[in-house]
């Protein structure tokens, strides 16, 4: 992180924080003594966001790795994703048979496992929304709409991957990891920025 970018970002960070943080009236000597404090103050929002985000990511993914959570929450959820994907594939004439989380037809078979259920993107989105400075109402709206939208995109991903495996098998590996994971994560990030812009933007200071 260059000093240059930091000094550039300082005014904007300050403008979004309270005006009371301004130290314009401080004597020069005090200002230089107070520099470390103003560094943290000016970046308080970023540091808080990143800390909370990292804690939620670490905590969330540790939670879903516990055996009990995996077998009682994640596995049934993954089963639901597999069933929904099977229904969607049948709707487009793929003549699908379901065996647990395995989706199969006469051309291709795929097992929907952890990592294919959209939970990763949901936790990243959840972390970014909860860590962002916004009202609880805005966070609630963001989480409900965002998590539904992420699952919808994940459903498209599973259907597209099945079709890729069935008709263009040599592209399946790259599509499975690089292409669709990038698309789903990118969608989560764009959704978060859209949410922050539309629902969670900080209110302007009132002049009362």
């Amino acid at each position, binding site marked *: *992180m*260059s000093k*240059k*970018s930091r000094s*550039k*970002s*300082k005014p*904007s*960070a300050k*403008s*979004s924080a309270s005006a009371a943080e301004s130290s314009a009236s401080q004597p020069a000597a005090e200002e230089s003594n107070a520099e470390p404090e103003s560094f943290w103050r*000016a*970046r308080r*929002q*970023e540091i808080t*966001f*990143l800390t909370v*985000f*990292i804690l939620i*990511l*670490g905590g*969330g*993914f*540790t939670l879903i*790795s516990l055996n009990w959570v995996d077998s009682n929450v994640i596995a049934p959820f993954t089963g639901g994703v597999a069933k929904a994907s099977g229904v969607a594939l049948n709707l487009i004439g793929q003549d699908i048979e379901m065996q647990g989380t395995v989706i199969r037809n006469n051309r291709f078979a795929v097992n929907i496992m952890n*990592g294919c259920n959209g939970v*990763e*993107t949901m*936790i*990243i989105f959840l*972390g*970014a929304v909860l860590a962002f*400075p916004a009202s609880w109402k805005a966070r609630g709206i963001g989480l409900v709409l965002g998590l539904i939208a992420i699952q919808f995109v994940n459903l498209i991903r599973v259907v597209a991957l099945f079709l890729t495996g069935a008709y263009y098998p040599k592209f399946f*590996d790259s599509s499975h*990891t*690089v292409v669709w*994971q*990038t698309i789903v*994560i*990118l969608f989560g*990030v*764009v959704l*978060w*920025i*859209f949410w*922050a*812009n*539309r*629902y*969670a*933007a*900080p*209110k*302007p*200071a009132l002049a009362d």
Partner: protein
Amino acid sequence: MAKSDKEKSWVWVFLGGILIWILPVAALWWYATPVYNMFLTNSAENLVRLTERPKVTRLLEHDKHHLVITRTDFATARGWLDSVRTTDVHFPLIMLGAFFLAVPGVSWKQRFENLGWAALISVFFHIFSLFFWVKFVYATQLGEWSAEHYTVFWQNFWGLGKHLIDLPFKLAMPLLLWTAFYFSKLVPNLKTT
């Protein structure tokens, strides 16, 4: 404080920029992947060997996208212990590049400088990620040998560490780095409600 239409559109310009940059960055990443995989394989091998006595780990390139983990003191019928798709470790660089190049209102010099720092942090993260992969394989994937050489605590440590590095932090790394550099630019440019 009302903002002008131009200021309000910062977020949309940024989102549009991501769409514009994603394909050129992906093409560059794809082109550089074989060389980068070779670099990561060698760097991760050196890091693993720093932590072992005697130095027995060899990481070998299997094909353009995979490395295989071998040990000189451990023979298997297939000749290697496990394989890792190296390309999967670093594909979030595509998002990182697009995010950092798409930021409006920042000079190109500054964009590339910040991208350079973020990419450098990512390189260390990728090497560290492969290191955790190898340790995870040793601690949990080699049956009796794993149980003999790693206690339950260390099996859980390397298992959970690999899980956290390989999923949440790998996938969230571009957003984490972008917000570390540009959060103070995003917040004032959001539409005021």
